[in-house]
Protein backbone atom coordinates (compact mmCIF):
# COMPACT_ATOMS: atom_id res chain seq x y z
CA UNK A 1 0.00 0.00 0.00
CA UNK A 2 2.56 2.52 1.16
CA UNK A 3 4.88 1.45 -1.61
CA UNK A 4 2.13 2.10 -4.15
CA UNK A 5 1.40 5.53 -2.81
CA UNK A 6 5.07 6.40 -2.70
CA UNK A 7 5.43 5.30 -6.29
CA UNK A 8 2.54 7.50 -7.39
CA UNK A 9 3.99 10.50 -5.67
CA UNK A 10 7.69 10.23 -6.43
CA UNK A 11 8.15 8.52 -9.72
CA UNK A 12 5.47 10.09 -11.94
CA UNK A 13 7.28 13.35 -12.70
CA UNK A 14 10.53 11.51 -13.37
CA UNK A 15 8.84 9.12 -15.72
CA UNK A 16 8.02 11.87 -18.13
CA UNK A 17 11.72 11.96 -18.90
CA UNK A 18 11.61 8.51 -20.34
CA UNK A 19 11.00 8.64 -24.07
CA UNK A 20 7.54 7.87 -25.39
CA UNK A 21 8.95 5.07 -27.50
CA UNK A 22 10.45 3.40 -24.48
CA UNK A 23 7.17 3.55 -22.63
CA UNK A 24 5.28 1.96 -25.50
CA UNK A 25 7.67 -0.94 -25.79
CA UNK A 26 8.01 -1.64 -22.15
CA UNK A 27 4.99 -3.78 -21.30
CA UNK A 28 5.68 -6.20 -24.14
CA UNK A 29 9.38 -6.63 -23.46
CA UNK A 30 8.47 -7.07 -19.80
CA UNK A 31 6.05 -9.91 -20.50
CA UNK A 32 8.53 -11.59 -22.80
CA UNK A 33 11.16 -11.27 -20.10
CA UNK A 34 8.83 -12.62 -17.42
CA UNK A 35 7.86 -15.62 -19.53
CA UNK A 36 11.53 -16.33 -20.13
CA UNK A 37 12.13 -16.21 -16.38
CA UNK A 38 9.26 -18.59 -15.68
CA UNK A 39 10.36 -21.04 -18.34
CA UNK A 40 12.91 -23.14 -16.39
CA UNK A 41 10.58 -23.68 -13.42
CA UNK A 42 7.61 -24.45 -15.66
CA UNK A 43 9.59 -26.87 -17.84
CA UNK A 44 10.69 -28.80 -14.75
CA UNK A 45 7.21 -28.94 -13.29
CA UNK A 46 5.33 -29.74 -16.48
CA UNK A 47 7.90 -32.12 -17.92
CA UNK A 48 8.72 -34.15 -14.82
CA UNK A 49 5.66 -33.94 -12.61
CA UNK A 50 2.48 -32.63 -14.21
CA UNK A 51 2.68 -34.62 -17.45
CA UNK A 52 3.43 -37.92 -15.69
CA UNK A 53 0.57 -37.22 -13.28
CA UNK A 54 -1.87 -36.76 -16.17
CA UNK A 55 -0.36 -39.68 -18.05
CA UNK A 56 -0.89 -42.08 -15.14
CA UNK A 57 -4.61 -41.30 -15.23
CA UNK A 58 -4.68 -42.33 -18.90
CA UNK A 59 -2.52 -45.36 -18.11
CA UNK A 60 -4.99 -46.51 -15.47
CA UNK A 61 -7.61 -47.10 -18.19
CA UNK A 62 -5.23 -49.17 -20.33
CA UNK A 63 -4.10 -52.73 -20.30
CA UNK A 64 -0.38 -52.40 -20.62
CA UNK A 65 2.33 -55.00 -20.45
CA UNK A 66 5.94 -54.67 -21.50
CA UNK A 67 6.50 -54.80 -25.26
CA UNK A 68 2.81 -54.62 -26.13
CA UNK A 69 0.71 -51.74 -27.35
CA UNK A 70 -1.65 -50.52 -24.66
CA UNK A 71 -5.33 -51.23 -25.15
CA UNK A 72 -8.28 -49.43 -23.59
CA UNK A 73 -9.92 -51.56 -20.91
CA UNK A 74 -12.22 -49.07 -19.21
CA UNK A 75 -12.45 -49.55 -15.47
CA UNK A 76 -11.01 -53.08 -15.48
CA UNK A 77 -7.89 -52.02 -13.57
CA UNK A 78 -9.99 -50.36 -10.89
CA UNK A 79 -12.21 -53.43 -10.69
CA UNK A 80 -9.09 -55.56 -10.17
CA UNK A 81 -7.83 -53.09 -7.58
CA UNK A 82 -10.94 -53.18 -5.40
CA UNK A 83 -10.89 -56.98 -5.36
CA UNK A 84 -7.21 -57.12 -4.39
CA UNK A 85 -6.89 -57.91 -0.69
CA UNK A 86 -3.33 -56.54 -0.56
CA UNK A 87 -4.58 -53.15 -1.76
CA UNK A 88 -7.21 -52.92 0.99
CA UNK A 89 -4.68 -54.01 3.55
CA UNK A 90 -2.28 -51.28 2.32
CA UNK A 91 -5.08 -48.69 2.29
CA UNK A 92 -6.16 -49.58 5.82
CA UNK A 93 -2.55 -49.58 7.07
CA UNK A 94 -1.99 -46.18 5.49
CA UNK A 95 -5.14 -44.80 7.08
CA UNK A 96 -4.16 -46.02 10.53
CA UNK A 97 -0.48 -45.09 10.30
CA UNK A 98 -1.06 -41.64 8.82
CA UNK A 99 -3.56 -40.69 11.52
CA UNK A 100 -1.34 -41.92 14.31
CA UNK A 101 1.61 -39.99 12.86
CA UNK A 102 -0.25 -36.73 12.21
CA UNK A 103 -2.05 -36.50 15.55
CA UNK A 104 0.82 -38.00 17.52
CA UNK A 105 3.11 -35.38 16.09
CA UNK A 106 0.58 -32.63 16.69
CA UNK A 107 0.12 -33.50 20.35
CA UNK A 108 3.83 -33.97 20.93
CA UNK A 109 4.87 -30.90 18.92
CA UNK A 110 2.33 -28.71 20.69
CA UNK A 111 3.40 -29.97 24.10
CA UNK A 112 7.05 -29.25 23.31
CA UNK A 113 6.20 -25.81 21.95
CA UNK A 114 4.27 -24.92 25.11
CA UNK A 115 7.05 -26.28 27.28
CA UNK A 116 9.77 -24.36 25.48
CA UNK A 117 7.95 -21.07 25.79
CA UNK A 118 8.43 -21.37 29.53
CA UNK A 119 12.13 -22.19 29.30
CA UNK A 120 14.59 -19.33 29.40
CA UNK A 121 18.05 -20.81 29.82
CA UNK A 122 19.62 -22.29 26.71
CA UNK A 123 16.47 -22.06 24.65
CA UNK A 124 18.33 -21.68 21.36
CA UNK A 125 20.43 -24.77 22.00
CA UNK A 126 17.38 -26.78 22.99
CA UNK A 127 15.59 -25.79 19.80
CA UNK A 128 18.67 -26.78 17.80
CA UNK A 129 18.61 -30.21 19.44
CA UNK A 130 14.90 -30.64 18.73
CA UNK A 131 15.40 -29.76 15.06
CA UNK A 132 18.34 -32.17 14.54
CA UNK A 133 16.29 -35.21 13.43
CA UNK A 134 14.95 -33.12 10.52
CA UNK A 135 18.47 -33.19 9.00
CA UNK A 136 18.75 -36.99 8.99
CA UNK A 137 17.95 -39.28 6.10
CA UNK A 138 15.35 -42.02 6.48
CA UNK A 139 17.93 -44.75 6.10
CA UNK A 140 20.20 -43.34 8.83
CA UNK A 141 17.14 -42.87 11.04
CA UNK A 142 16.29 -46.53 10.50
CA UNK A 143 19.89 -47.46 11.34
CA UNK A 144 19.47 -45.72 14.71
CA UNK A 145 16.10 -47.14 15.60
CA UNK A 146 16.81 -50.66 14.40
CA UNK A 147 19.99 -50.65 16.45
CA UNK A 148 18.14 -49.47 19.55
CA UNK A 149 15.24 -51.87 18.95
CA UNK A 150 17.27 -54.92 17.90
CA UNK A 151 15.41 -57.79 19.65
CA UNK A 152 16.99 -58.84 22.96
CA UNK A 153 20.19 -56.78 22.53
CA UNK A 154 19.13 -53.22 21.60
CA UNK A 155 19.25 -50.51 24.28
CA UNK A 156 15.61 -49.49 23.86
CA UNK A 157 14.20 -52.97 23.35
CA UNK A 158 15.87 -54.17 26.58
CA UNK A 159 14.46 -51.16 28.37
CA UNK A 160 10.96 -51.84 27.00
CA UNK A 161 11.24 -55.55 27.83
CA UNK A 162 12.12 -54.56 31.39
CA UNK A 163 8.96 -52.44 31.55
CA UNK A 164 6.93 -55.34 30.19
CA UNK A 165 6.26 -53.53 26.92
CA UNK A 166 7.40 -55.89 24.21
CA UNK A 167 7.34 -54.53 20.66
CA UNK A 168 8.09 -57.51 18.38
CA UNK A 169 8.46 -55.33 15.28
CA UNK A 170 10.28 -57.97 13.25
CA UNK A 171 7.51 -60.56 13.50
CA UNK A 172 4.19 -58.89 14.33
CA UNK A 173 2.67 -56.61 11.65
CA UNK A 174 1.07 -54.22 14.17
CA UNK A 175 4.40 -53.82 15.98
CA UNK A 176 6.31 -53.20 12.76
CA UNK A 177 3.88 -50.44 11.81
CA UNK A 178 3.95 -49.03 15.35
CA UNK A 179 7.73 -48.72 15.19
CA UNK A 180 7.46 -47.10 11.75
CA UNK A 181 5.05 -44.55 13.31
CA UNK A 182 7.47 -43.85 16.16
CA UNK A 183 10.34 -43.31 13.72
CA UNK A 184 8.22 -41.10 11.45
CA UNK A 185 7.15 -38.99 14.43
CA UNK A 186 10.77 -38.71 15.58
CA UNK A 187 11.75 -37.64 12.09
CA UNK A 188 9.06 -35.07 11.32
CA UNK A 189 8.12 -33.64 14.69
CA UNK A 190 10.57 -30.71 14.12
CA UNK A 191 8.36 -29.46 11.26
CA UNK A 192 5.18 -29.48 13.34
CA UNK A 193 7.02 -28.07 16.33
CA UNK A 194 8.51 -25.13 14.41
CA UNK A 195 5.17 -24.10 12.92
CA UNK A 196 3.34 -24.30 16.25
CA UNK A 197 6.15 -22.66 18.20
CA UNK A 198 6.28 -19.72 15.78
CA UNK A 199 2.50 -19.39 16.10
CA UNK A 200 2.57 -19.52 19.90
CA UNK A 201 5.24 -16.82 20.06
CA UNK A 202 3.04 -14.53 18.00
CA UNK A 203 0.14 -14.72 20.47
CA UNK A 204 -0.02 -11.25 22.02
CA UNK A 205 0.94 -11.17 25.71
CA UNK A 206 -1.99 -8.86 26.46
CA UNK A 207 -4.64 -11.47 25.62
CA UNK A 208 -3.08 -13.84 28.13
CA UNK A 209 -2.77 -11.21 30.79
CA UNK A 210 -6.36 -10.14 30.28
CA UNK A 211 -7.53 -13.73 30.68
CA UNK A 212 -5.40 -14.12 33.79
CA UNK A 213 -6.97 -11.03 35.34
CA UNK A 214 -10.40 -12.47 34.60
CA UNK A 215 -9.39 -15.40 36.79
CA UNK A 216 -8.75 -18.04 34.12
CA UNK A 217 -6.39 -20.82 35.14
CA UNK A 218 -3.33 -21.55 33.01
CA UNK A 219 -5.10 -24.62 31.61
CA UNK A 220 -8.19 -22.59 30.65
CA UNK A 221 -6.08 -19.80 29.20
CA UNK A 222 -4.31 -22.30 26.96
CA UNK A 223 -7.38 -24.11 25.61
CA UNK A 224 -9.87 -21.23 25.52
CA UNK A 225 -7.60 -18.35 24.53
CA UNK A 226 -4.40 -19.49 22.88
CA UNK A 227 -5.48 -22.59 20.98
CA UNK A 228 -8.21 -20.70 19.11
CA UNK A 229 -5.67 -18.00 18.21
CA UNK A 230 -3.14 -20.46 16.81
CA UNK A 231 -5.81 -22.62 15.13
CA UNK A 232 -4.79 -21.54 11.59
CA UNK A 233 -1.23 -22.72 12.25
CA UNK A 234 -2.50 -25.99 13.72
CA UNK A 235 -4.60 -26.59 10.61
CA UNK A 236 -1.65 -25.84 8.32
CA UNK A 237 0.53 -28.27 10.27
CA UNK A 238 -2.14 -31.00 10.15
CA UNK A 239 -2.80 -30.53 6.45
CA UNK A 240 0.85 -30.51 5.42
CA UNK A 241 1.66 -33.49 7.56
CA UNK A 242 -1.29 -35.42 6.08
CA UNK A 243 -0.08 -34.75 2.57
CA UNK A 244 3.49 -35.75 3.38
CA UNK A 245 2.63 -38.69 5.64
CA UNK A 246 0.61 -40.33 2.85
CA UNK A 247 3.90 -40.58 0.95
CA UNK A 248 5.40 -42.68 3.77
CA UNK A 249 7.76 -45.18 2.20
CA UNK A 250 11.32 -45.38 3.52
CA UNK A 251 10.48 -45.92 7.19
CA UNK A 252 8.30 -48.95 6.46
CA UNK A 253 10.31 -50.28 3.53
CA UNK A 254 13.62 -50.32 5.37
CA UNK A 255 12.03 -51.79 8.47
CA UNK A 256 9.80 -54.58 7.19
CA UNK A 257 9.87 -54.47 3.34
CA UNK A 258 6.08 -54.58 3.68
CA UNK A 259 6.26 -58.08 5.14
CA UNK A 260 5.52 -60.51 6.58
CA UNK A 261 3.21 -61.64 3.75
CA UNK A 262 2.48 -58.07 2.54
CA UNK A 263 0.78 -57.34 5.86
CA UNK A 264 2.66 -54.11 6.64
CA UNK A 265 2.48 -52.53 3.20
CA UNK A 266 1.35 -48.92 2.95
CA UNK A 267 0.04 -47.43 -0.30
CA UNK A 268 3.44 -46.19 -1.50
CA UNK A 269 4.95 -49.64 -0.97
CA UNK A 270 2.01 -51.35 -2.66
CA UNK A 271 2.49 -49.06 -5.65
CA UNK A 272 6.24 -49.65 -5.70
CA UNK A 273 5.98 -53.43 -5.59
CA UNK A 274 3.18 -53.65 -8.15
CA UNK A 275 5.26 -51.50 -10.51
CA UNK A 276 8.83 -52.60 -10.03
CA UNK A 277 8.52 -56.14 -8.72
CA UNK A 278 5.30 -57.57 -10.16
CA UNK A 279 5.30 -55.38 -13.30
CA UNK A 280 1.55 -55.03 -12.91
CA UNK A 281 1.19 -51.56 -14.39
CA UNK A 282 -2.61 -51.70 -14.47
CA UNK A 283 -2.96 -52.15 -10.71
CA UNK A 284 -0.04 -49.82 -10.09
CA UNK A 285 -1.46 -46.93 -12.09
CA UNK A 286 -4.97 -47.41 -10.69
CA UNK A 287 -3.63 -47.28 -7.14
CA UNK A 288 -1.44 -44.32 -8.15
CA UNK A 289 -4.53 -42.43 -9.27
CA UNK A 290 -6.14 -43.18 -5.91
CA UNK A 291 -3.13 -41.73 -4.07
CA UNK A 292 -3.13 -38.73 -6.38
CA UNK A 293 -6.81 -37.95 -5.81
CA UNK A 294 -6.49 -38.50 -2.08
CA UNK A 295 -3.59 -36.06 -1.84
CA UNK A 296 -5.32 -33.41 -3.91
CA UNK A 297 -8.55 -33.86 -1.96
CA UNK A 298 -6.74 -33.27 1.34
CA UNK A 299 -4.86 -30.32 -0.14
CA UNK A 300 -8.03 -28.73 -1.53
CA UNK A 301 -8.79 -26.39 1.40
CA UNK A 302 -5.20 -25.14 1.39
CA UNK A 303 -5.07 -24.69 -2.38
CA UNK A 304 -8.42 -22.93 -2.33
CA UNK A 305 -7.25 -20.51 0.35
CA UNK A 306 -3.97 -19.80 -1.40
CA UNK A 307 -5.77 -19.22 -4.70
CA UNK A 308 -8.08 -16.74 -2.99
CA UNK A 309 -5.15 -15.02 -1.35
CA UNK A 310 -3.25 -14.72 -4.63
CA UNK A 311 -6.31 -13.32 -6.34
CA UNK A 312 -6.91 -10.72 -3.67
CA UNK A 313 -3.24 -9.77 -3.62
CA UNK A 314 -3.45 -7.23 -6.46
Amino acid at each position, binding site marked *: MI*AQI*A*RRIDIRPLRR*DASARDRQHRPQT*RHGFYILL*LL*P*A*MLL*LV*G*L*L*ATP*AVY*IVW*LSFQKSTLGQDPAFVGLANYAALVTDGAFWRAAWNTFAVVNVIVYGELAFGLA*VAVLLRRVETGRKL*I*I*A*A*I*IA*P*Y*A*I*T*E*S*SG*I*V*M*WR*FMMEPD*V*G*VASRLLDGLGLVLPWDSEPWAGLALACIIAI*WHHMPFTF*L*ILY*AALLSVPKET*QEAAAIDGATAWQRFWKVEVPIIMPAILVAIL*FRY*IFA*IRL*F*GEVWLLTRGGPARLTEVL*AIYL*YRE*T*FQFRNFGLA*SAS*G*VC*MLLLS*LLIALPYLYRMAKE*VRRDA
Partner: protein
Amino acid sequence: MHDDRPLTRLLRAAAVMAVLAWSLVPILLVVTSSFKEPRQIFEVPFRMFFIPTAENFTTLARLNPEFFSSLRNSIIVTLFTVLLTLCASFAAGYVYARTKETAYKVSAVFMLVVRMLPPIVVTVPLFPVVNWLALNDSHLILILLYAAFYVSLGSWMMRSFVAQIPIELEEAAALDGASLWQILRLVILPLAAQGLVALTLFVVVFAWNEYVFAMIFTTSNARTAPVVIGEMLSTAEGVQWGAVFAAATIQLVPVVLIVLALQRFLIAGLTAGAVKS
Protein backbone atom coordinates in the same frame (compact mmCIF):
# COMPACT_ATOMS: atom_id res chain seq x y z
CA MET B 1 3.13 -14.78 34.75
CA HIS B 2 5.80 -17.38 35.40
CA ASP B 3 5.10 -20.01 37.94
CA ASP B 4 8.38 -20.41 39.74
CA ARG B 5 7.60 -22.89 42.47
CA PRO B 6 10.57 -25.26 42.82
CA LEU B 7 8.50 -28.35 41.99
CA THR B 8 7.18 -26.79 38.78
CA ARG B 9 10.69 -25.81 37.76
CA LEU B 10 11.97 -29.28 38.47
CA LEU B 11 9.20 -30.91 36.43
CA ARG B 12 9.84 -28.49 33.60
CA ALA B 13 13.56 -29.29 33.61
CA ALA B 14 12.80 -33.00 33.61
CA ALA B 15 10.44 -32.57 30.65
CA VAL B 16 13.11 -30.65 28.73
CA MET B 17 15.63 -33.40 29.43
CA ALA B 18 13.17 -36.03 28.18
CA VAL B 19 12.59 -34.11 24.94
CA LEU B 20 16.34 -33.68 24.44
CA ALA B 21 16.90 -37.39 25.03
CA TRP B 22 14.17 -38.31 22.54
CA SER B 23 15.72 -36.11 19.83
CA LEU B 24 19.40 -36.64 20.46
CA VAL B 25 19.97 -40.09 21.96
CA PRO B 26 19.40 -41.99 18.68
CA ILE B 27 21.83 -39.69 16.87
CA LEU B 28 24.48 -39.65 19.58
CA LEU B 29 24.26 -43.40 20.02
CA VAL B 30 25.11 -44.00 16.38
CA VAL B 31 27.81 -41.37 16.17
CA THR B 32 29.59 -42.49 19.35
CA SER B 33 29.17 -46.19 18.56
CA SER B 34 30.89 -45.63 15.23
CA PHE B 35 34.08 -45.01 17.22
CA LYS B 36 33.70 -48.11 19.40
CA GLU B 37 35.30 -51.45 18.81
CA PRO B 38 32.73 -53.76 17.16
CA ARG B 39 32.54 -56.08 20.18
CA GLN B 40 31.73 -53.11 22.47
CA ILE B 41 28.72 -52.04 20.43
CA PHE B 42 26.12 -54.37 21.96
CA GLU B 43 27.93 -54.72 25.27
CA VAL B 44 25.84 -55.04 28.47
CA PRO B 45 25.88 -52.91 30.56
CA PHE B 46 26.04 -50.09 28.08
CA ARG B 47 29.59 -48.72 27.83
CA MET B 48 29.63 -44.99 28.34
CA PHE B 49 33.39 -44.42 28.16
CA PHE B 50 35.75 -46.06 25.74
CA ILE B 51 38.90 -45.41 23.77
CA PRO B 52 37.87 -44.18 20.31
CA THR B 53 39.03 -46.26 17.38
CA ALA B 54 38.77 -45.83 13.62
CA GLU B 55 38.33 -49.55 13.11
CA ASN B 56 34.74 -49.27 11.85
CA PHE B 57 35.74 -46.73 9.25
CA THR B 58 38.46 -48.97 7.86
CA THR B 59 36.00 -51.89 7.87
CA LEU B 60 33.59 -49.71 5.93
CA ALA B 61 36.27 -48.90 3.35
CA ARG B 62 37.12 -52.59 3.00
CA LEU B 63 33.59 -54.09 2.91
CA ASN B 64 31.67 -51.28 1.23
CA PRO B 65 34.01 -49.26 -0.97
CA GLU B 66 30.92 -48.24 -2.97
CA PHE B 67 29.86 -46.08 -0.04
CA PHE B 68 32.56 -43.55 -0.81
CA SER B 69 31.62 -43.27 -4.48
CA SER B 70 27.99 -42.92 -3.38
CA LEU B 71 29.07 -40.06 -1.15
CA ARG B 72 30.64 -38.38 -4.16
CA ASN B 73 27.40 -38.90 -6.10
CA SER B 74 25.43 -37.33 -3.25
CA ILE B 75 27.72 -34.31 -3.29
CA ILE B 76 27.40 -33.86 -7.08
CA VAL B 77 23.63 -34.30 -7.06
CA THR B 78 23.13 -31.97 -4.08
CA LEU B 79 25.36 -29.26 -5.54
CA PHE B 80 23.69 -29.15 -8.94
CA THR B 81 20.19 -29.52 -7.50
CA VAL B 82 20.86 -26.45 -5.37
CA LEU B 83 22.14 -24.48 -8.36
CA LEU B 84 19.25 -25.41 -10.62
CA THR B 85 16.57 -24.94 -7.96
CA LEU B 86 17.98 -21.58 -6.90
CA CYS B 87 18.15 -20.20 -10.45
CA ALA B 88 14.70 -21.45 -11.47
CA SER B 89 13.05 -20.41 -8.19
CA PHE B 90 14.65 -16.99 -8.03
CA ALA B 91 13.56 -16.20 -11.59
CA ALA B 92 10.00 -17.46 -11.08
CA GLY B 93 9.67 -15.94 -7.61
CA TYR B 94 10.69 -12.54 -8.97
CA VAL B 95 7.99 -12.73 -11.62
CA TYR B 96 5.32 -13.75 -9.09
CA ALA B 97 6.32 -10.92 -6.76
CA ARG B 98 6.14 -8.27 -9.49
CA THR B 99 3.14 -9.20 -11.62
CA LYS B 100 -0.57 -8.74 -11.15
CA GLU B 101 -1.94 -10.37 -14.30
CA THR B 102 -4.19 -13.39 -13.89
CA ALA B 103 -2.08 -15.71 -16.05
CA TYR B 104 0.87 -15.39 -13.69
CA LYS B 105 -1.34 -15.96 -10.68
CA VAL B 106 -2.80 -19.08 -12.24
CA SER B 107 0.68 -20.43 -12.85
CA ALA B 108 1.67 -19.68 -9.24
CA VAL B 109 -1.29 -21.70 -7.96
CA PHE B 110 -0.50 -24.42 -10.51
CA MET B 111 2.91 -24.74 -8.83
CA LEU B 112 1.27 -25.40 -5.48
CA VAL B 113 -1.05 -28.01 -6.97
CA VAL B 114 1.91 -29.88 -8.50
CA ARG B 115 3.69 -29.79 -5.16
CA MET B 116 0.89 -31.86 -3.65
CA LEU B 117 1.49 -34.85 -5.97
CA PRO B 118 2.98 -37.86 -4.18
CA PRO B 119 6.48 -38.51 -5.63
CA ILE B 120 6.05 -42.29 -5.88
CA VAL B 121 3.08 -41.83 -8.22
CA VAL B 122 5.07 -40.05 -10.94
CA THR B 123 7.72 -42.78 -10.98
CA VAL B 124 5.32 -45.22 -12.67
CA PRO B 125 4.97 -43.31 -15.96
CA LEU B 126 8.45 -41.73 -15.71
CA PHE B 127 10.40 -44.93 -15.38
CA PRO B 128 10.00 -46.22 -18.96
CA VAL B 129 10.61 -42.74 -20.38
CA VAL B 130 13.76 -42.29 -18.30
CA ASN B 131 14.99 -45.67 -19.51
CA TRP B 132 14.22 -44.80 -23.11
CA LEU B 133 16.17 -41.54 -22.80
CA ALA B 134 19.06 -43.53 -21.27
CA LEU B 135 18.91 -41.24 -18.21
CA ASN B 136 18.57 -44.14 -15.81
CA ASP B 137 21.36 -44.32 -13.25
CA SER B 138 22.57 -40.80 -14.10
CA HIS B 139 23.14 -37.82 -11.87
CA LEU B 140 21.10 -35.72 -14.28
CA ILE B 141 17.78 -37.47 -13.69
CA LEU B 142 18.08 -37.10 -9.92
CA ILE B 143 19.05 -33.44 -10.25
CA LEU B 144 16.09 -32.71 -12.52
CA LEU B 145 13.60 -34.58 -10.33
CA TYR B 146 14.82 -33.02 -7.10
CA ALA B 147 14.76 -29.55 -8.63
CA ALA B 148 11.25 -30.18 -10.00
CA PHE B 149 10.04 -31.16 -6.54
CA TYR B 150 11.52 -28.14 -4.81
CA VAL B 151 11.03 -25.45 -7.42
CA SER B 152 7.45 -24.77 -6.32
CA LEU B 153 8.29 -24.26 -2.66
CA GLY B 154 11.34 -22.30 -3.84
CA SER B 155 9.39 -19.99 -6.12
CA TRP B 156 6.89 -19.24 -3.37
CA MET B 157 9.63 -18.59 -0.86
CA MET B 158 11.44 -16.27 -3.28
CA ARG B 159 8.17 -14.57 -4.11
CA SER B 160 7.70 -13.56 -0.50
CA PHE B 161 11.33 -12.45 -0.14
CA VAL B 162 11.35 -10.39 -3.37
CA ALA B 163 8.01 -8.81 -2.47
CA GLN B 164 9.73 -7.14 0.49
CA ILE B 165 12.21 -5.37 -1.80
CA PRO B 166 10.85 -1.88 -2.65
CA ILE B 167 9.99 -1.54 -6.32
CA GLU B 168 11.38 2.01 -6.24
CA LEU B 169 14.87 0.55 -6.29
CA GLU B 170 14.14 -1.13 -9.60
CA GLU B 171 12.61 2.02 -11.02
CA ALA B 172 15.59 4.07 -9.98
CA ALA B 173 17.93 1.57 -11.64
CA ALA B 174 15.78 1.62 -14.78
CA LEU B 175 16.01 5.40 -14.92
CA ASP B 176 19.77 5.06 -14.71
CA GLY B 177 19.56 2.95 -17.84
CA ALA B 178 19.86 -0.53 -16.36
CA SER B 179 18.39 -3.33 -18.47
CA LEU B 180 15.92 -5.83 -17.03
CA TRP B 181 18.66 -8.45 -16.68
CA GLN B 182 20.95 -6.00 -14.95
CA ILE B 183 18.22 -5.01 -12.52
CA LEU B 184 17.57 -8.65 -11.72
CA ARG B 185 21.23 -9.47 -11.25
CA LEU B 186 22.59 -6.32 -9.64
CA VAL B 187 19.62 -4.98 -7.65
CA ILE B 188 17.30 -7.85 -6.74
CA LEU B 189 19.71 -10.77 -6.42
CA PRO B 190 21.89 -9.26 -3.64
CA LEU B 191 18.84 -8.10 -1.71
CA ALA B 192 17.20 -11.52 -1.91
CA ALA B 193 20.33 -13.24 -0.59
CA GLN B 194 18.70 -14.16 2.70
CA GLY B 195 15.89 -15.94 0.91
CA LEU B 196 18.39 -17.77 -1.27
CA VAL B 197 20.28 -19.02 1.80
CA ALA B 198 17.03 -20.23 3.36
CA LEU B 199 16.08 -22.04 0.17
CA THR B 200 19.57 -23.55 -0.15
CA LEU B 201 19.18 -25.02 3.31
CA PHE B 202 15.88 -26.72 2.44
CA VAL B 203 17.20 -28.05 -0.86
CA VAL B 204 20.46 -29.34 0.66
CA VAL B 205 18.58 -31.26 3.34
CA PHE B 206 16.19 -32.70 0.75
CA ALA B 207 18.70 -33.63 -1.97
CA TRP B 208 21.31 -34.97 0.43
CA ASN B 209 18.80 -37.23 2.19
CA GLU B 210 16.31 -38.22 -0.50
CA TYR B 211 15.70 -41.97 -0.65
CA VAL B 212 12.78 -43.05 -2.87
CA PHE B 213 13.76 -41.51 -6.21
CA ALA B 214 17.42 -42.42 -5.72
CA MET B 215 16.50 -46.02 -5.01
CA ILE B 216 14.23 -46.29 -8.05
CA PHE B 217 16.24 -44.39 -10.65
CA THR B 218 19.81 -45.44 -9.86
CA THR B 219 21.51 -48.83 -9.89
CA SER B 220 25.25 -48.30 -9.42
CA ASN B 221 26.91 -45.31 -11.13
CA ALA B 222 24.74 -42.62 -9.57
CA ARG B 223 23.68 -44.45 -6.37
CA THR B 224 23.55 -41.95 -3.51
CA ALA B 225 24.66 -42.42 0.09
CA PRO B 226 21.21 -42.89 1.70
CA VAL B 227 20.46 -45.77 -0.68
CA VAL B 228 23.79 -47.49 0.03
CA ILE B 229 23.16 -47.18 3.78
CA GLY B 230 19.73 -48.74 3.21
CA GLU B 231 21.37 -51.61 1.30
CA MET B 232 23.88 -52.18 4.08
CA LEU B 233 20.93 -52.72 6.42
CA SER B 234 19.36 -55.44 4.30
CA THR B 235 22.18 -57.84 3.57
CA ALA B 236 21.48 -61.53 3.89
CA GLU B 237 24.66 -62.12 5.93
CA GLY B 238 23.47 -59.97 8.82
CA VAL B 239 24.09 -56.31 9.45
CA GLN B 240 27.70 -55.16 10.01
CA TRP B 241 26.71 -52.62 12.63
CA GLY B 242 30.14 -51.04 12.98
CA ALA B 243 30.44 -50.31 9.26
CA VAL B 244 26.83 -49.07 9.07
CA PHE B 245 27.46 -46.68 11.96
CA ALA B 246 30.59 -45.35 10.30
CA ALA B 247 28.66 -44.76 7.06
CA ALA B 248 25.70 -43.12 8.82
CA THR B 249 28.05 -40.88 10.82
CA ILE B 250 29.87 -39.68 7.70
CA GLN B 251 26.56 -39.11 5.95
CA LEU B 252 24.74 -37.24 8.71
CA VAL B 253 27.33 -35.12 10.49
CA PRO B 254 27.89 -32.49 7.76
CA VAL B 255 24.20 -31.85 7.12
CA VAL B 256 23.26 -31.79 10.81
CA LEU B 257 25.97 -29.18 11.37
CA ILE B 258 24.73 -27.11 8.42
CA VAL B 259 21.16 -27.20 9.72
CA LEU B 260 22.22 -26.22 13.23
CA ALA B 261 24.38 -23.37 11.96
CA LEU B 262 21.61 -22.00 9.74
CA GLN B 263 18.55 -22.86 11.84
CA ARG B 264 17.25 -19.31 11.90
CA PHE B 265 16.91 -19.49 8.10
CA LEU B 266 14.95 -22.70 8.49
CA ILE B 267 12.40 -20.91 10.61
CA ALA B 268 12.26 -17.97 8.20
CA GLY B 269 11.78 -20.31 5.24
CA LEU B 270 9.10 -22.36 6.93
CA THR B 271 7.05 -19.36 7.83
CA ALA B 272 7.47 -17.93 4.32
CA GLY B 273 6.60 -21.17 2.56
CA ALA B 274 3.98 -22.81 4.69
CA VAL B 275 2.26 -20.39 7.03
CA LYS B 276 1.42 -17.24 5.22
CA SER B 277 -0.75 -15.14 7.45
